[in-house]
């Protein structure tokens, strides 16, 4: 039950069911689709990489987060978690192995999909607008990096929430309601919005990935600060999950 063996077991779990494959396919279709449509309908407009990658930020990564959460909540729902903990009684090893596997998978998928989306958009805009999406521009690779970081951290966040909440519905509710409903609503509440808007985790995620979605807050700590802030939130959730999983009877 070394860490490497546990990671390998988690990898096998991921490739021996069909749902991860379908979810990954959904991610690719939605992400490339949104990039393609934007470039196709307005080929003469300036399309910055952040806009072309919108589909990855608002559809792709959330779906990958749900995929990650399912690797935990699916085990709790079916009782398979007992088999897992019998094989690897050091439960932190299990949570960390799961985190590593989904981080690599989701990070990889996000990176490849972002590159694909930007390349597709670049191919569909008119040649004069192509420079902004060229694969030799720093802005493009900065965006690929930011999205990859978001996909990686987001999947680990989902593992942590999955361990803490154990129910798929609860985790999906948090992962969908938080960025799309709760945070935007809190953000527009007078007084409150200005004060806590910048502290909301997904507001920070959108800040460092450059996704223009519903609203943006001015963050004095800049994109790097926002990335660090989001990473800190993920680390805190994962730490809580590691603490809880050891103490709670499954």
């Amino acid at each position, binding site marked *: *039950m070394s860490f490497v063996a546990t990671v*390998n077991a988690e990898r096998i779990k991921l490739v*021996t069911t*069909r749902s991860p494959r379908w979810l990954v396919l959904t991610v690719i279709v939605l992400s490339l689709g949104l990039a393609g449509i934007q470039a196709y309908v307005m080929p003469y407009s300036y399309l910055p990489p952040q806009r072309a990658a919108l589909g990855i930020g608002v559809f792709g990564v959330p779906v990958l987060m749900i995929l990650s959460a399912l690797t935990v909540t699916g085990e709790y729902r079916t009782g398979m978690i007992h*088999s897992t*903990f*019998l*094989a*690897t009684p050091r439960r932190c090893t299990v949570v960390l192995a799961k985190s590593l596997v989904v981080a690599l998978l989701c990070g990889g998928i996000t990176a490849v999909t972002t590159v694909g989306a930007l390349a597709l958009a670049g191919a569909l805009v008119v040649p004069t607008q192509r420079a902004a999406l060229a694969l030799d521009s720093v802005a493009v690779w900065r965006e690929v990096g930011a999205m990859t970081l978001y996909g990686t951290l987001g999947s680990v966040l989902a593992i942590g929430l999955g361990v803490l909440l154990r129910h798929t519905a609860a985790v999906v509710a948090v992962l969908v309601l938080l960025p799309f409903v709760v945070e935007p609503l809190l953000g527009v509440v007078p007084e409150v919005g200005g004060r806590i808007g910048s502290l909301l985790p997904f507001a920070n995620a959108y800040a460092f990935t450059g996704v223009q979605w519903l609203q943006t807050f001015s963050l004095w700590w800049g994109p790097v600060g926002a990335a660090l802030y989001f990473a800190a939130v993920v680390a805190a959730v994962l730490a809580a999950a590691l603490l809880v999983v050891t103490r709670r009877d499954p």
Partner: protein
Amino acid sequence: MIELTSLTKDYRRIRAVDELTATIEPGYVTGFLGPNGAGKSTTMRMIVGLDRPTSGTATVLGKLYRDLKDPMRHVGALLDARQLYPNRTARAHLRWLAATTSIPAARIDEVLESVGLTEVADRPAGSFSLGMAQRLGIAVALLGDPEVLLFDEPVNGLDPEGIRWIRTLMRELAAQGRTVLVSSHLLAEMAHTADRLLVIGRGRLIASTTMTEFLADSGIGTVRVRSPQSGRLAELLGARGASVQREDDTLLVQGIEIEAVGQLAAEHRLTLHELSTRQASLEEAYLRMTEDAVDYRAAGARS
């Protein structure tokens, strides 16, 4: 070898397992008996570290389960046959389990063969009947070739052929020198399988005994005879050293085989209206035993 020391588990206000102390020795099938809700499953879950004891300890091979290196190579457990992901095939389920402990892939085919699931190994485990799922659970338990085996109600959902198979399997495993702990709420199920018994009721240890002793105490050897010449028959049986209880024309005989009673009656040309063994007495003895424990608890609570 499994050692339980003052093992206790509280669920909010209910005490599921109460100061349980016992040693389960290798080389025997130990039956773990108790009515539903007696704390058998909770105890087994604590042995394998799924539930944290409120106090006390459960050790396997002298160590806490979580301190075992590669626990699947030391302990095999069938706790609930359905603890798997329904869309994954039986073979894939065994594959990831084997990977956690670096068990070679050839072993997967071996255990599938030994539980008779080779032909359905590539079907989703969720499509299995309870009996098949139970067999897969046993395959999981055997995967690491462990020296300690725990089976929680293993015959649930098995057909008669399957029940005989698992009984034989448990006896073989014990004969190989392994420690086998099997829980059940049915004593009859254990009568032909277990060498030793651990009886619990309401989380407390009621008896730790051998099957032979238990049977001797329970009066399982009782033969019931009805005869119009019961008085004469009672004399003859008494002369053979059997103990006889007489009620009108009915005799309850202990200490003699049923065949010998028939033989004796034939030799003396006595008419018999009934000659049978008392099947229920085993369950009765067990119920008497567990009821006592309940009474004891109630009395303890009052004082």
